[in-house]
């Protein structure tokens, strides 16, 4: 049995949930097993049943609304581990999301299972178990084996496409999870309005010190808007408070792997590249043809960002309109 954790928010499934479901389904198929989603909280039975399109066989749901705002991974881990034991699960699949990073280690300890975090491919389950993950902040990959029968894997964001494999409907069954006291309480949530989440974004528009000052970010925001992209920045830009900390990407910031990463006025220091070079396609806009970033780019524009970016916005708007 392969079980996976269903992350949701305000009643909707999160993007990572589809990736995790697809991963679990592919693993179940590969090991001639079933994939079962565990959902704690209020999500409509229809949206859970629709996970069948991604290959999910069954969803076990505890509709208790207390789970909707539960941020104590200890409480969630207890419920997930209990289900894993009951179902005799061999694999537990969890997104490598903010919540997943707190949940997975707790589940693995409870199950005495090895945890391989942030995997980027399907494992080899034929011979010795072997799975690929990113290490050295994007400067390498490691193939890992695990010495326990039960294995917990977290799936890196944007690494495994959420592919619809059919039109099946997953069976949704209720269960009642054992609950424990919450020791971490949510006081408030601040959503960045209308913003695409940086870690999950398909497209990231990022800018560096070449922009000269925070007042010049209007065109970056506009470019991101046109593309439906998240915004990011280099470390000195966040350190000097031109942009918020959570936008800092790189080895000591957020690691991203979108389909498209557009770097504007960023030199391409090794620590910056480390956090972004698993992006599928990289576009670099820099006025210095010798900027190291061009060596790590697929497409490059040698030019002044203040001239190039507005032209790119115009071209994109024309393309979107056509």
């Amino acid at each position, binding site marked *: 049995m392969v079980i996976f954790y269903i992350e949701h928010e305000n009643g909707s499934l999160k993007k990572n949930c589809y990736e995790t479901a697809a991963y679990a389904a592919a693993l179940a198929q590969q090991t001639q097993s079933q994939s079962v989603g565990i959902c704690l909280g209020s999500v409509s039975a229809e949206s859970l049943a629709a996970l069948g399109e991604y290959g999910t066989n069954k969803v076990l749901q505890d509709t208790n609304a207390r789970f909707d705002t539960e941020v104590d991974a200890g409480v969630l881990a207890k419920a997930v581990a209990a289900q894993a034991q009951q179902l005799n699960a061999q694999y537990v699949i969890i997104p490598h999301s903010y919540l997943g990073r707190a949940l997975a*280690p707790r589940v693995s300890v409870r199950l005495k299972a090895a945890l391989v975090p942030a995997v980027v491919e399907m494992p080899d389950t034929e011979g010795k178990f072997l799975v690929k993950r990113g*290490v050295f902040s994007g400067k390498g990959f490691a193939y890992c084996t695990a010495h326990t029968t039960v294995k917990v894997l977290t799936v890196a964001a944007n690494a495994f496409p959420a592919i619809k494999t059919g039109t099946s409907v997953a069976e949704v069954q209720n269960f009642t999870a054992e609950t424990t006291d919450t020791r971490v309480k949510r006081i408030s949530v601040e959503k960045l309005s209308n913003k695409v989440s940086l870690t999950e974004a398909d497209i990231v528009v990022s800018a560096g010190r070449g922009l000269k000052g925070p007042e010049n970010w209007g065109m970056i925001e506009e470019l991101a808007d046109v593309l439906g992209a998240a915004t990011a920045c280099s470390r000195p830009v966040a350190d000097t408070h031109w942009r918020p900390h959570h936008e800092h990407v790189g080895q000591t910031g957020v690691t991203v792997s979108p389909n498209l990463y557009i770097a504007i006025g960023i030199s391409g220091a090794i620590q910056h590249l480390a956090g972004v070079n698993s992006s599928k396609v990289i576009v*670099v806009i820099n006025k210095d043809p010798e900027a190291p970033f061009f060596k790590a780019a697929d497409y490059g524009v040698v030019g002044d960002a203040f001239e190039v970016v507005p032209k790119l916005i115009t071209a994109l708007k024309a393309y979107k309109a056509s």
Partner: protein
Amino acid sequence: MKILVCLSKVPDTTTKISFTDNNTKFNAQGVTWILNPTDEWYALVRALEIVEQQGGSVTVIHVGNAEGDQLIRKALAIGANDAVRIDVEPQDAFQAAANIAQYAAQQSYDLIMTGKETINYNGAIVGGIIAEILELPYVSLASSLDVNGSTATMKCEIEGGEETVEASLPLVVSANKGMAEQRIPNMRGIMTARTKPLSVIPAFANTQTQVEVVKFEAPPTRGNVHLVDPDNMDELVRLLHDEAKVI
């Protein structure tokens, strides 16, 4: 307030990563080791600030061989009171975490702090494993931490936003950017660090490795960059659509 800060040892951020022995080992030749940035910059400094305001002590702990001693001395120079090194080079996150948890179980820390993740193994899981073994609450990726009596308040990054959470001590927290500002050790710190206690203890039982790296691989290299005329952004859009298929 007794705080334990977990410090790991990682290759300097400028290290060109390569592998040896048929790609089965990380090539450590010529590598300069540093304290993992988020451990040093955020977890350690915030721990020191809390103790400076409220009294108490900061102990740093490192699981690893004697190569780590000079890095531990740096943490003492920045201001930690004492240090513990568990003398085993961990092969996976579980081994590091299980050793720290068993050491901490013999003490009574109000706070156990880690960095966000190590820049060599990028697991972001050691703190969670420690918390579960010790049955403590855990808050991961906190970008601020304030302690008031026996309650801690933290801001945490989440997808597309931030949340504020509250937890009671004792607590395990992993520190993210924003929690503190990096401190550079001064001369006096470096001098006093030499005489601060650093105890070296053997590994605990039942801390076997669970995950083993069998082989490494370098990331794929990109082809030559395709330069586009800065006056022809229609062409870039066309390439991104037709060729790269990303828009």
